[in-house]
């Protein structure tokens, strides 16, 4: 079914969502987890070099979406209590508000860009002072010492700060993707093929299920598992592609963590 997202590179998870909902007029009713995941994975494929930060954000938004849509898939979720129902709606409204805000600024950015393009057609004069006035100009080097020069040099040469992943805008999760990956690498070679429903049947917390899902995506990205879903809301089948029954920890070396920050603390 390959789900092609024929658009320019998405800047973030909201871009992708906005695109899915508005540009293509795709009703999310019809988007199964497979389609969302495919759209997401297609995005990853399109990234020329894997950007950990962006990948993380895509994973997180995918997780939220799956939260919204996944109750039917998950075992024992037919009798959802009212609190959970309300919480889910709240989450949905939050997501909706953020999408609207995102769209507002996206359109504002377009308008600013048009202003800048128009302004670019008119080039300012910057030739500066004529020679005879230069001697009058204040001595810019007054107060500049060798030491200040040295400091300025070191500042200019200093390595630029390393990009961090901010998670304070994300719902707190207390789980570790890395742990989940390790569990799966231990479990999957023994069973070979398993449905996602089975993989998660012992889990109580919804967020744990999502972290497991993220772990499965990591393994997929590393080529260690294959994912299959026969139709909308059908079971997601996970097939181990690594060596059978080999629980040597060295297979983990092949797993490049896409998620830089694995510990989600509440």
């Amino acid at each position, binding site marked *: 079914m390959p789900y092609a997202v024929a658009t320019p590179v998405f800047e973030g998870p909201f871009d992708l969502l906005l695109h899915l909902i*508005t540009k293509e*007029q795709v009703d999310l*009713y019809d988007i199964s987890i497979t389609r969302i995941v495919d759209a997401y994975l297609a995005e990853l494929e399109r990234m020329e070099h894997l950007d950990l930060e962006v990948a993380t954000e895509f994973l997180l938004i995918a997780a939220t979406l799956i939260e919204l849509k996944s109750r039917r898939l998950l075992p024992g979720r037919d009798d959802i209590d009212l609190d959970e129902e309300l919480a889910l709606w709240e989450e949905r409204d939050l997501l909706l508000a953020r999408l609207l805000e995102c*769209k*507002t*600024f996206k359109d504002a*950015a377009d308008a600013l860009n048009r202003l800048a393009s128009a302004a670019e057609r008119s080039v300012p004069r910057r030739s*500066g002072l004529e020679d005879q006035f230069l001697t009058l100009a204040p001595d810019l080097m007054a107060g500049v010492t060798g030491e200040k020069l040295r400091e300025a040099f070191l500042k200019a040469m200093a390595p630029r700060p390393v990009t961090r992943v901010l998670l304070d*805008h994300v719902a707190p999760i207390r789980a570790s993707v890395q742990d989940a990956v390790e569990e799966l690498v231990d479990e999957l070679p023994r069973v070979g093929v398993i449905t996602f429903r089975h993989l998660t049947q012992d889990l109580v917390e919804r967020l744990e299920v999502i972290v497991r899902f993220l772990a499965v995506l990591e393994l997929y990205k590393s080529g260690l598992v294959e994912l299959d879903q026969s139709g909308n809301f059908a079971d997601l089948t996970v097939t181990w592609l690594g060596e059978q029954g080999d629980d040597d920890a060295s297979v983990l070396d092949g797993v490049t963590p896409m998620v830089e920050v694995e510990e989600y603390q509440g």
Partner: protein
Amino acid sequence: MIEEQRAIEAILMVAEDPVEPGLLAQLLEVPVERVEQMCAELAESYVTEDRGFVLARVAGGFRFQSHPDLAPYVERFVLEGQSARMSAAALETLAIVAYKQPVSRAQIAAIRGVNVDGVMRTLQQRGYIEEVARDPGPGQAVLYGTTRLFLEKLGVDTLDDLPPLGDFVPGPEVVEALEQGLRPDA
């Protein structure tokens, strides 16, 4: 032409940045209103005479610029591309700073849904945004705002000249579409 008006032309000819009317008033020893009026007259005269340059009011000051409709010639002359195109991410981040200032990095990240550290650093290096204050709250987060250079790049005089943010709030049909798309019960 009167001397003060000629002096304005002479000063703007050697200035590297937009010159504020207040400074011109001080140098010429005339009221600011008079400066505004004289500049308006000058700008008008260049238009009337169909000159190849304009007197523009940008980023709080006056400056000479090439006329926009001569851009094809000027582009041929100015060999180096003026400035590299900004990415969509940079533009959206810049829009948030412009309309929400003073605003913290965390607030921007929350709106964009992605980490903005790299983009913010680029915008700061390019001189479009700067630290303007600290959040008085416990975190003392750095708050950012746009710079004069930002106004210059957009060719506007003040932030009030930007189109109001309200113009971009999605209409009911977009809200409806988004709402539909996010309904959890199929």
